[in-house]
């Protein structure tokens, strides 16, 4: 396996002050599904837009199959496919006409285009709706058409920007099935962004956790989960007494973090040690008001590496962005 995407110190600054992507480094191997996981405004789409030649990097380099995105955009446009976050299909054409237009834009030989269009429409289960105007399509159908369009020229790398955003659960799992099928059948490299943990977990071979334009962690989902080093006991204790030292002394406890009256106790073999942990609190005069055992999942990985849960990050992330925008606005006015 060779690196098909190589990103070095990539930076994108908007309006001179907003560092949307803040010096990221990563490689994507040929044939893998690589995912960027992060809250809205973390820099996922900005990264993808630089890779697909829509945005110019402020500094740093990004190579796709050896071609620099800033210097050889035309070469790159031939070898990549993009399913953007916002739909780009034409409402006033039929599904098939959209596909034909796409095949013309990518200069797919006419004879071959017809066959590929039929195959792709079949793949995304749109053959029955192919000759209907796209404006009669549902959101999920449009997204599937968009996916089929992105594949018309048999790209080496497919970029999916939030492929299931705004889709219902059933449609989401169909999209996942399509993406998996693509990877297996055509040995395609897929680069995707998502802010759904389960999506990253079930689809991606490797994921990069991105927040505030920086990559906080990058590995296979299973390795990331393993790196947590055990299960997490979340315990709420009444009273003002600090149990941190007491908890740390219990056997098999790896780490204790206190947030208000809540303790996050990282412990090996959680089920078995739970009783010992709880006993140590009650023995020392504490009253446990709630307890939960969490198996490692990506949400905890996210929490581990960014210091906040993905849901919190989602809220504060958008606030940060708003604040940054306001700052940028003010600084512009001062000038």
């Amino acid at each position, binding site marked *: 396996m060779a690196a098909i995407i190589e990103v070095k110190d990539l930076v994108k600054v908007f309006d001179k002050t907003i560092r949307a992507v803040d010096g990221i480094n990563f490689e994507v191997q040929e044939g893998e599904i690589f995912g960027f996981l992060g809250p809205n405004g973390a820099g996922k789409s900005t990264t993808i837009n630089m890779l697909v030649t*829509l945005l110019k990097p402020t500094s740093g380099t990004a190579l796709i199959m050896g071609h620099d995105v800033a210097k050889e955009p035309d070469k790159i446009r031939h070898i990549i496919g993009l399913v953007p976050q916002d739909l780009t299909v034409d409402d006033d054409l039929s599904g098939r006409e959209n596909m034909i237009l796409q095949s013309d834009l990518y200069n797919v030989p006419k004879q071959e285009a017809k066959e590929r269009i039929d195959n792709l429409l079949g793949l995304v289960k749109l053959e029955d709706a192919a000759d209907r105007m796209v404006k009669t399509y549902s959101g999920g159908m449009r997204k599937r058409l968009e996916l089929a369009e992105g594949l018309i020229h048999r790209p080496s790398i497919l970029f999916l920007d939030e492929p299931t955003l705004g889709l219902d659960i059933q449609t989401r799992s169909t999209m996942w099935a399509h993406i998996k099928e693509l990877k297996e059948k055509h040995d395609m490299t897929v680069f995707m962004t998502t802010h759904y943990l389960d999506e990253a977990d079930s689809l991606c071979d490797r994921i990069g956790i991105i927040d505030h334009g920086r990559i906080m962690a990058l590995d296979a989902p299973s390795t990331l989960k393993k790196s947590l080093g055990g299960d997490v006991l979340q315990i709420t204790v009444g009273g003002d007494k600090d149990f941190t030292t007491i908890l740390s002394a219990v056997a098999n406890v790896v780490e204790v973090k206190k947030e208000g009256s809540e303790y996050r106790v990282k412990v090996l073999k959680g089920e078995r040690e739970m009783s010992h942990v709880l006993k140590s609190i009650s023995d020392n005069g504490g009253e446990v008001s709630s307890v939960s055992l969490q198996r490692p999942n990506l949400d905890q990985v996210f929490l581990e590496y960014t210091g906040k849960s993905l849901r919190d990050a989602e809220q504060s992330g958008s606030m940060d962005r708003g604040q940054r925008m306001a700052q940028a606005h003010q600084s512009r006015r001062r000038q």
Partner: protein
Amino acid sequence: MIRETSALTVRELKHWYRIKIQMFMTLIQPIVWLGLFGQAFNFGAFIPPEQIPIYFAGAPDYFSFLAVGMLGVITLFTCMFGGISLIWDRRFGFLTKLRVAPIPRGSVPVSRISSTMVRALFQAVIVFLIALGFNYIPGLTGLTVGSSFNALDLIGLFVTLALLALGFAGIFISIGLLVENQETMFALVNLLNLPIMFASAALFPLAQMPTWLQTVAKYNPLTWAVDAARVFVFQNPNPIHPVWWSMTALALFAVLMIGVSVYAARKKLSAT
């Protein structure tokens, strides 16, 4: 280059003829213009009949004069909508698709200019036929063409309008590319449209305008087009510019504006 440009041209034209209301407006608008203004503003009534052709570029009455001017005005308006459609495509994401596609940036404006030209010519044909048809409706004045009007003149007329359409479409599509905000676009289009229409020989003879306005109007491409058109339709012996001059100026104007639009596309549709 040719394949994607023609594919995009066809896409534009499909948009146009599929939207029934747009088609309807296309037909109804010239009827209203010719029916209301053409019949109401009978400026010919103030002039001794034998002098009418001298005042109105060889036309036997004001309606005929206006009908030919209207061919130019309708071209101007169609081109304006060509620029606005670009704003919608940016808004609805279609432009993103084109920006990611491995196509020369210039194919975007060129395809739009050519589809806009087809639309403009189609409209002009309709206006021309309606104006002629008014002759057969009792109580209405119709377009009376010059006595030696022939097929060659007809071709000359539509070549003139085609050149005008290429130039104007180039202007408005360049504006659509450069101005990303739709409110600004509408404001700019309005700001340009009315002066171009009124500061020209399209609706009123140049000779009756104040000198400063005449000077402006003489260099308005719409004046060049309607001036040449009236030579073709009425064999106007005293045009503002000689026909060859107007046609050359229009051709240069078209080439220049297509060039500007391709430049604008390279600037605005590449990575930013």
